[in-house]
C-alpha cells in the first residue's frame, strides 16, 4: 500500500525529513576502513575531489551491469528493490541497468510510487533531529562536497504530488556498505553510480520502491494500512 503523507507524518516523518544520511564517517566502526583498499584513489567532479571506489574489491553483483528485467513497469522507471539491495533503471527490450545499493533505516520505512522532482550536485546535509539525538557530536549541517558529507556526490529527492516525502537516492562515503542494511540514511549508491544515474534520470522520473520486509534487530515491520489508497 502506498502510505499517505499523513501516515508518514504520524509514523515520524521527522526522521526522514531534510536530508537522509549515510552512517556518519566519524561513527566508530567505519573509521578503521576509511584508509582501506576499498578506495582506488581520487577523482574530481564538479570541482570536488572525492575518493573513488576500488571496484576490484567489490563483489561483482554490486557492479553496474545490464540485465534482463521482466516487469510491467515502463522504460525510464527506476525500481528500487530494497530487500535485495538493487536499483534498476529500466531500458528497452526488457533490460535494465542494475546498480547495487545500501539501505539505511529511512529506506526501510516507505514504499510505493514517487517521482524525482529535485536533484542536487554535492548536496548540503542537514542531519534530522532524531539523528542528532543519537549522535550529539554531529554538527547542525555539513556543506556539500565536504569529505565528511555522507550524501556524497548527488542527491535525488522523491516527491509525491508535489510533496517531498523525505526519501532520497544519494551517494556514500563507505563503499563497503553497498549491499547491506545501514544504520541510517536512505538509498545509498557508490559515488560513481549515483553520478551515472543522475545523468540518466530527468526531473519527473518515475520511481517504484519495493518493500523491505526484513527485520532489523528490534525494528518492527512497517504497518500496512489497507484503508489507504
Amino acid at each position, binding site marked *: 500500500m502506498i502510505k499517505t503523507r499523513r501516515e508518514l507524518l504520524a509514523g515520524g516523518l521527522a526522521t526522514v525529513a531534510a536530508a537522509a544520511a549515510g552512517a556518519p564517517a566519524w561513527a566508530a566502526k567505519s573509521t578503521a576502513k576509511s584508509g582501506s583498499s576499498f578506495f582506488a584513489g581520487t577523482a574530481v567532479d564538479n570541482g570536488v575531489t572525492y575518493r573513488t571506489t576500488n571496484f576490484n574489491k567489490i563483489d561483482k553483483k554490486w557492479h553496474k551491469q545490464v540485465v534482463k*528485467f521482466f516487469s510491467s513497469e515502463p522504460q525510464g522507471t527506476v525500481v528500487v528493490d530494497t530487500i535485495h539491495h538493487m536499483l534498476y533503471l529500466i531500458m528497452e527490450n526488457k533490460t535494465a541497468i542494475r546498480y547495487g545499493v545500501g539501505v539505511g533505516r529511512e529506506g526501510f520505512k516507505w514504499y510505493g510510487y514517487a517521482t524525482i522532482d529535485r536533484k542536487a550536485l554535492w548536496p548540503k546535509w542537514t542531519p534530522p533531529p532524531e539523528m542528532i539525538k543519537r549522535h550529539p557530536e554531529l554538527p547542525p549541517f555539513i556543506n556539500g562536497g565536504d569529505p565528511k558529507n555522507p550524501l556524497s556526490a548527488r542527491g535525488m529527492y522523491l516527491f509525491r504530488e508535489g510533496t517531498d516525502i523525505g526519501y532520497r537516492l544519494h551517494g556514500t562515503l563507505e563503499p563497503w556498505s553497498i549491499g547491506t542494511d545501514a544504520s541510517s540514511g536512505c538509498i545509498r549508491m557508490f559515488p560513481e553510480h549515483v553520478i551515472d544515474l543522475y545523468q540518466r534520470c530527468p526531473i519527473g522520473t518515475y520511481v517504484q520502491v519495493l518493500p523491505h520486509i526484513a527485520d532489523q534487530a528490534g525494528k518492527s515491520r512497517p504497518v500496512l494500512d489497507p484503508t489507504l489508497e
Partner: protein
Amino acid sequence: MIAGIDFRRLAFAGLLALLAGCTTTKMEDTTVDSQPPPTGGSTNEAAPGFANMQGGSEEDFILNVGRRTFFTKGSAELDSVARATLDQQVAWLQKYPSWLVKVQGFADDGGSESGQVALSQKRADAVMAYLASGGVAQSRMWAKGYGKDREVRDCPQKACQVQNRRVVTNLRSDRDQP
C-alpha cells in the same frame, strides 16, 4: 506477489508498457539498439550481448557512457547534465573513431505535429553540434527529428513526457543502417 503494491497502478503501468509496444511496431525502423530482446530467462541474468562486454562495443557505450540526453518542455537547450553526458560521448567516440553516429531527436511537448518534428530536429541538431564542437568529425554524424513518434511512454503525465523529450545518440557501422 509483491506485498503492498496497488494493483490498479500495476495494471496501468502494464497498459503503458503495452501502448509503448504498440507505438513502436508501426515505425519503419526502430530506435532501439541492435540487441535482440531476451527471449527467455529471468530477471537479473545478463542481458544479451552484455555478458562478455568488450571496450569499444555498443554495449560499452550504452552501459559506461549513456546514449540519452533529456530536455525541458519546449526547449532544445543542452543543460549542464546533458553536456556532462555529451562530454563523455565525445571522449568515447574519439577513442573509437570507426563508429558512425546517428543522432535521433524526439519531442512530447504539446502543440502541432509539425512543431514537434521541428523541435525534435532542433534537439538532434543541438546534440550533433555539441559533439562536433568537442571534436567528433561532422562526416561521421547525421541527425534526424522524429517528433512525437516512438514514445518511450505514452501518457499525459509529466513522468511520461520527461522520458520522451530526448535525444538518443546511436552507434552505426554504415550510413545506410536504419
